[in-house]
């Protein structure tokens, strides 16, 4: 476990309405400011979050993601999670976050 602050790296995408982001570092209570940069996606877009480089996530981080996902849902944005490890998948399922995802679950690596 490190105290690496969350960073977000946008990934290239072929489709105009599909945007991919890699989350890097720790998703905790301090992630809220960084996640706010994702609130501006166009409606009806598809947002894909890659969790491969997420080092740590806790319940406060999940609450920040929930806030983002609820905002995206109001904008009709499809949400996909990729490369989530077993623990992240479990947390998404147990806290109900997975229900907000386009395919109903977080994809493992």
């Amino acid at each position: 476990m490190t105290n690496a602050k969350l960073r977000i790296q946008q990934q290239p995408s072929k489709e105009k309405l599909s945007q991919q982001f890699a989350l890097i570092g720790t998703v905790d209570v301090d992630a809220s400011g960084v996640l706010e940069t994702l609130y501006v996606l166009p409606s009806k877009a598809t947002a894909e979050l890659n969790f491969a480089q997420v080092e740590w996530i806790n319940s406060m981080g999940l609450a920040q993601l929930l806030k983002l996902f609820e905002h995206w849902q109001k904008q009709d944005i499809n949400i996909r999670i990729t490369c989530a490890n077993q623990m992240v998948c479990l947390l998404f399922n147990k806290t109900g976050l997975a229900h907000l995802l386009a395919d109903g679950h977080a994809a493992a690596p």
Partner: protein
Amino acid sequence: MLESQKSHHIRHSAEFSVPCVRDLTQPVKPITLDTPVLDVLGLFQTHADLSALPVMDGDNKYFGIISRRNYLNLMTRAFARELYARKNLDIFLESNSDIFVAPLIANAEDRIDQVIVDFLSRDPGIKYEALPVVGKDGIMGVVKIADMMLKMSQSQGNLIETMQQLSARLNDEVANAAALQKNLLRPALIELPGVRGLSTMITSSEVGGDFYDYYMVDGRWVVILVGDVSGHGIAAGTIVCAAKAGVNFLESEKEKEPHKILSRLSNIIFNTAHQSLLMTMFAVCLDTRTGELRYANAGHQFAYLYRSMLSQLDSLELGGLPLGKNANTDYEQQVTEIDLGDRLFLYTDSIVEEENNAGECFGYERLEEVLVNHGESDIETLNSGLLNTLTTYLGRSVFHDDVTIFCVEHFEKTSDIGQTDTAAKPAPDIIEQVHIADAFYRANPATISPRIQRQELIFLAEQNFSDLIPGLATQGVRRILLQDHPINQQLGWGVLLNQHQNKNTDDLSVFMRYPEQRREFYFTHSEDKIFIINEVDAWLQEQSIPNTDRLDAAIFLLDELIENGLCGAPRDGKGRPLYAKGTSRELAVDELLRLDVSIQNGLLGISLTDSWGTLTPNVFLNRLSRHVQGMGLDSGIGGGGLYLIWRMSDYLQLRVFPNQQTQVCAFMDLNNPFDPEADKGFQFLYHSELYEAINHD
């Protein structure tokens, strides 16, 4: 008292009556059709006040009426006198039948205002000057229209004067009734041991149908009642007075059970109003020593409970017949627990039912929004904020119905303030444990008796039970064990079942008496968290744990436990957190935060102990309950920690000594893979200062 006397007594002193036709009737001897025409003329000419003459036929039955004006108009002409000089009325009739017509025949007992209305509808031009009057013996005379109209004018003047006197007297009486009703109410500012608050009552008429009352029993139990009589005004106010008299009696009897209070008040209202008026009422009783809240409802709006530590608004949903609907009504009673800082909000329906100009009700959503937004405001601000929001929404400050707002906060336990305890029972020396099996509960999902002390109640589940958690949580069940889980053998069944008797401050050493490895860490600063977690992580990796997913779960669990200890546990007297999540801070000199980790025979035990003792069964059960119902995580805020700690453990135990210590112990069976779908056993042991469970019978 004779019936006539009673009637007089009830009629009071208002004197007014409308005259009837008999009073104005001019007695006139009728003439017949064989009367000479000139004789009739002579009668009119010699009797100036004779307005009309009734005419009878040959069988002495009423035939018609000759009015003075019509008759003289014709017969004062020379040609008419000459034409009918020697003729009787029957000949005169052949050419002048219209002269014999009257628009109506008045009954001697008719009220003149009714006759006038009838007459004007038939003869708006007032061509006729008199009407024949008939009594029980036939034609008794005539009544002049002018006399009736004159009398009506005089009568109206009398009426106005009488009404003014009556109105003045009624105003006095209503003002007296309003003052009396106001004096019946307890002070708006509620200041009782352990509870304080404010009530606001706005009546839409001088005398209202809303009601609130409260009283204390034995310096420990606070009884609160809020009610609403159907309608408002004097009649509703009378029922309020009857209810108040009943409450005074119940208070003198120290009655504190809400369901009994409602049942007895219902009888009083039933016998007072005989079902002509009903009253709704919500009754609660708070044990200010244990935080137990009992409630019952007689068709009233559900009370709200704002749980401060959770920033959550709960509705105390329970039904029941309105007071006075039937004789001998029984009411259901429910029980819940509240913590310090929690608020109870009761109100009458007009708040949600008042409509704005567009015909839209204020509604429950707006009310709940105000209650949540003002969750941390003082009660005065909440009350005024609610009224401001309501009047702004309505666009007016006058209400169509009475409005009552009643809000109290449980701010301290009475045992904390040195209250003399005359009613409290000591902790029983022999504890009789009660076990409830999940199969039995599913087949009989009735209310678990509040007489069973929750600390001694164990729910034994043979299979997953999380679907039952919301129901069990509302009944305060806080010890749930899975019968066949292998960890029970590792921890020891006997030890698990007797945890309520154990007041050891180190549960980890009780369950794991001979650990192969044990580490202990003391925190001095929040920044220690990462270092300590990494230290434990490295140490656990050295243990060659066969199931690596257990390691991830253990580290996650550690983070949540420590975060709770650093930022969740420190709270003020109202249960509000002192630090925001993620705050970097140094621990106070007298503040303890200790992490213990032990391994024994493939069993991992993690324990976090803080010196705050602020976690309550309510908060824990509520968190589990909300997550099970799919609404546990609060967007942007959190609320998942306790639930996920339970999910990641194979057995979770929480032991709290209020305001002294919280110890959370999580155990994992490292020999078996983690099963995320299996529910896990937990026990929350809450050691209040007097005894360890809720029971005030």
